[in-house]
């Protein structure tokens, strides 16, 4: 009798504990979702009303004068993404091919380790290095310097996803190619890479989404530009740097434009993320 109540009591205690801990997990999920909702709520709430045609087609106005847009910064961000890709993709993809196809040795391990090291390097440090390597010898802040910094930041993501995706290609594909008398390099390029193409694209898009909002490495490389500029040997405007400048400024109109720019930036990154989802989905359907 006594022991029955005891086990009963323990049973209820265990039940209560179970309920309590599960509720905590639900609560933390709720708390994790809250900032997402808050950030999106504020960005849309504060930014949306300042996005109009002018925002995409006009240039920034002089300090303190309301109006104007960020056409040059939007273009600049796209150019920087392009330059970053030109620098980062060849290195990333080819290093990825090496790791997947030839990298099962000591040297491969070292490269893999260094790629991981690179992915942990803070972006501000990459900015410092790009300044000493590109800006100082060129004696010029430039879009190119910004592209180099962003490209370096893309490499680890691209390398590791390329490696993994190429690894996923079944060996029977390679053997089939070789059996037909196709040289290995052609097999890799024409058969293996083609099969892994969507996977590698995902990696590339992921890397682009990661660097699209990078600000710190641009501060001392691409600097900024208040004019329309497409020259890659000149300083160039970018949305993140504009957000930074406009957010800390005391001018209300600038603050509002910072929110609008943040909204546009998030929208651009979302497009990249949705493309990733689309690409990965169609890949699984093919399989």
């Amino acid at each position, binding site marked *: 009798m006594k022991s029955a109540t005891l086990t009963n009591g323990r049973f209820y205690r265990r039940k209560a504990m179970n309920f309590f801990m599960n509720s905590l997990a639900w609560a933390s999920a709720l708390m994790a979702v809250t900032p997402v909702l808050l950030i999106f709520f504020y960005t849309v709430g504060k930014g949306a009303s300042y996005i109009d045609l002018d925002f995409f087609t006009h240039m920034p*106005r*002089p*300090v*303190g*004068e309301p109006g104007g847009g960020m056409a040059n910064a939007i273009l600049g961000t796209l150019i920087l993404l392009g330059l970053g890709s030109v620098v980062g993709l060849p290195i990333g993809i080819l290093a990825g091919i090496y790791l997947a196809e030839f990298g099962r040795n000591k040297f491969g391990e070292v490269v893999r380790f260094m790629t991981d090291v690179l992915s942990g390097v803070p972006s501000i440090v990459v900015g410092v290095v790009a300044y000493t*390597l*590109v*800006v*100082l*010898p*060129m*004696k*010029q*802040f*430039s879009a*190119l310097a910004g592209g*180099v910094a962003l490209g370096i930041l893309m490499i680890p993501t691209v390398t590791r996803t390329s490696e993994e995706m190429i690894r996923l290609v079944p060996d029977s594909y390679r053997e089939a190619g070789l059996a037909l008398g196709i040289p290995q390099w052609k097999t890799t390029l024409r058969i293996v890479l083609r099969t892994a193409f969507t996977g590698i694209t995902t990696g590339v898009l992921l890397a682009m989404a990661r660097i699209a909002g990078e600000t710190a490495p641009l501060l001392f490389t691409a*600097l*900024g*530009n*208040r*004019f329309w*500029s*497409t*020259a*890659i*040997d*000149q*300083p160039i405007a970018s949305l993140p740097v504009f957000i930074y*400048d406009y957010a*800390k*400024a*005391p*001018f209300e109109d600038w603050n509002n434009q910072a929110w609008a720019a943040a909204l546009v930036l998030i929208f651009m990154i979302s497009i990249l993320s949705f493309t990733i989802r689309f690409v990965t989905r169609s890949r699984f359907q093919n399989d």
Partner: protein
Amino acid sequence: MPTKSIVLSLFLTFSGLSYAQTQLNGAGATFPYVLYSKWFDVYKQKTGVQFNYQSIGSGGGIKQIIEGTVDFGATDGPMKDEQLAETSKKQGVDVLHIPTVLGAVVVTYNLPQLGAGLKLTPETLAGIFLGEVTKWNDRRIASTNPGKNLSDQTIIVAHRSDGSGTSFIFTDYLSKVSKQWETKVGRGTSVRWPTGLGAKGNEGVAGLVKQTEGSIGYVELAYAVKNHLPYAWMKNKAGEFIEPTLESVSAAAAGAAKDMPEDFRVSITNADGKSSYPISGFTWLLVYKKNRDKSKGEALVNFLKWAMADGQSYASDLLYAPLPKEVIKLVEVRVQSIK
């Protein structure tokens, strides 16, 4: 470094691709940014020549002109002799200081119940920024502001986190009026602040003060007025409380204008004169005597001539004091030597 030469050759290949367009890049002081961005906007519409100016702070302007990464710099704290020597050594050319306008550094605050026109003595101001005066109802503040509504709110000091000419003018002034400040902190574009919050740029300090009740900071007059922030009247050398206005800044410059040094590097803080506002200063463009590229040199000369003539008329609207006539004449002569 072999890598550097690789990068350089890469650059040479790429630079052929970018189409020709006269663009000069500059960076530096945030103090005159309001005016400069107006100037460069107007000038671009007038002539098509782009002066891309980034307000990264005076320290940044000096640094980048030393490293030769910009075509022109801007500062409100003159370069030191060592810095000028270093530039000559690194870039093989001399740097000129070209004064463009004058401005006031105003002590701005966020104290809604107080309204405009707080009156401060130099000693109290130094005390606040040294962290010795910590409450708004401190006796030293109250004594010069009888009848004002001062609560026991904590004073939140805001200063620059970046290297700043505004900071230079401000600390130069405090060093002149307070022995303690001079020994403990000193003057410079970046100093070790005894107390307070750091914010980047004049924009940042004005933004911080605007956001934070009970705060006090120092910004260029234009930033305070444009943001409807109140600012303090300062007791000057002659013992008068002076409101920072274009007239009181010009008054401070009057002495210096008559006795301008050859290289234009002059401090006008704590100036003589009954109506002089004591925390005023020139702001300079830093240009190379000989430019990398002949067309850039010409563009600079043309622009500087325009700035001395038409450009000066934009100053007052934006709350900068135009240069005294004598100084303009000197500058116009000096500009001719730029190549």
